């Protein structure tokens, strides 16, 4: 029999069991403490990772916003480009028409110039003849 404390006596087997239990409890407590410490470390790691992820998320969000802005600008540019292309095609058509009209005008001017020269020559002939007749000179 073992005396336990001041008043009680327990049997040896019971005492041994209690000591064993205590050892196990202490050992478990130690393990739990270690696990707790590990968990704390992991927690700190995760927290750091979460912070990083959060930071990355913020960065990505920022990049996404910038990209969205760029996309909007590009879309606006594309629309402008399409308008410009339409304007270019219209200008080319207008240029072709203008050139065609210019050709027609130049041809008409050739005709008018030729006619003016011919009429000038004819008028001069008539006038010279008339002048010669008025002066009594032989025609």
């Amino acid at each position, binding site marked *: 029999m073992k005396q336990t404390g001041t008043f009680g006596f327990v049997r040896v087997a019971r005492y041994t069991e209690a000591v064993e239990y205590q050892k196990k409890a202490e050992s478990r407590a130690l393990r739990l403490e270690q696990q707790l410490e590990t968990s704390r470390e992991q927690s700190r790691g995760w927290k750091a990772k979460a912070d990083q992820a959060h930071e990355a998320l913020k960065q990505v969000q920022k990049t996404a916003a910038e990209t969205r802005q760029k996309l909007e600008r590009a879309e606006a540019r594309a629309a402008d480009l399409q308008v410009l292309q339409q304007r270019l095609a219209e200008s080319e058509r207008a240029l072709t028409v203008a*050139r065609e009209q210019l*050709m*027609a005008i*130049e*041809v*008409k001017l050739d*005709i008018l*110039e030729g*006619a003016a020269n011919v009429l000038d020559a004819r008028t001069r002939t008539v006038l010279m003849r008339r002048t010669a007749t008025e002066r009594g000179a032989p025609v």
Partner: protein
Amino acid sequence: MAPLSDRSSVTSHDRTPPTVSIVLTGRNDDYGVGFEARFFRTLRFNHRELTSRGIAYELVFIEWAPPQDRPRLVDRVFDAVPDLDPGVCRWYVVDAQYQAALSLNPRLVYLEFVAKNVGVRRAAGRFVLTSNCDVYFGRVVLDALARGSLMDGVVYRAARYDLKAEIGDGNPGWPEIEDPANLDGRPRSLRPPFMAGGTGDFVLLDRGTFHEMRGFNEVYRVARIGIDRNFLVKALSMGLTIEDIGGPVYHVNHAGSYRLTVHDYEGREGEAPWGNRRWHSSGVVYNNAPAWGLSEAPQRQLAKGVWFLDFSWDAVPPLVDLRGVVLPVSRLGGPRPGRYVSRM
């Protein structure tokens, strides 16, 4: 005289219309040195070849504004070409006043295409071939005429091969004409879409369509060069087809020909006897007046098959007809009208 419809000929034919009317124009002014001899030689050859193939043809000759001091071609041709049957010839002598009245450029002493229009308007053949007096028809051309397989609404063109001037000294036959050694320069080829190049030497088209087109440009009488190309531009604008007939015609080079003298006028183009070469012949087309081809000119018969076109202001188209200058139509699948070319 009442105006003629566009489709009608000025002359009436009491015999079966020929397959083809060959329209030529010339005058005895020694153009290009020895014109008369060159013309008669060529006519002998072509007449012989056409006749031997049994091609029913008529010769419509426009003796344009002949000089007073020289014998007229009509008075010499049947002696010079005895085989030529006067019955297949219709000869029109045109009063010289028409040249003066029509001229818009005093340097052009021969309004060649107005003269050709006089013939086209009066042609009776189912087809009309306009050519020049010194052009020999090649075998393929003659065979095509003989076969009679030509189609309406198709402008047939033939490439022009230039032969050395000395070939024209004798009476050239097939051996001389077809000998590649006698070619003066590389033979030309016709390139789409216009198939132009020496066009004045060969344009073959059915008479109905030729009349629908109202012949060659009579509105722009400022230049001689490019009028034939301008006809092709109008043909395409009207939706006609232009085809190579498949073989050449032959031209014997001679002094005074455009090809040999064009460089003599470099730097002084304004003095050239063919007018402005750079006018927009590919960029505009024309609408001749209904009385094109001097159809209102009073005709006086001089002899069987010979007429004189007396001068009348009624027959002269307006000096200026700006509404007759129009832009060609660009057709789907067809060529675009000519591009503007600066004339600097």
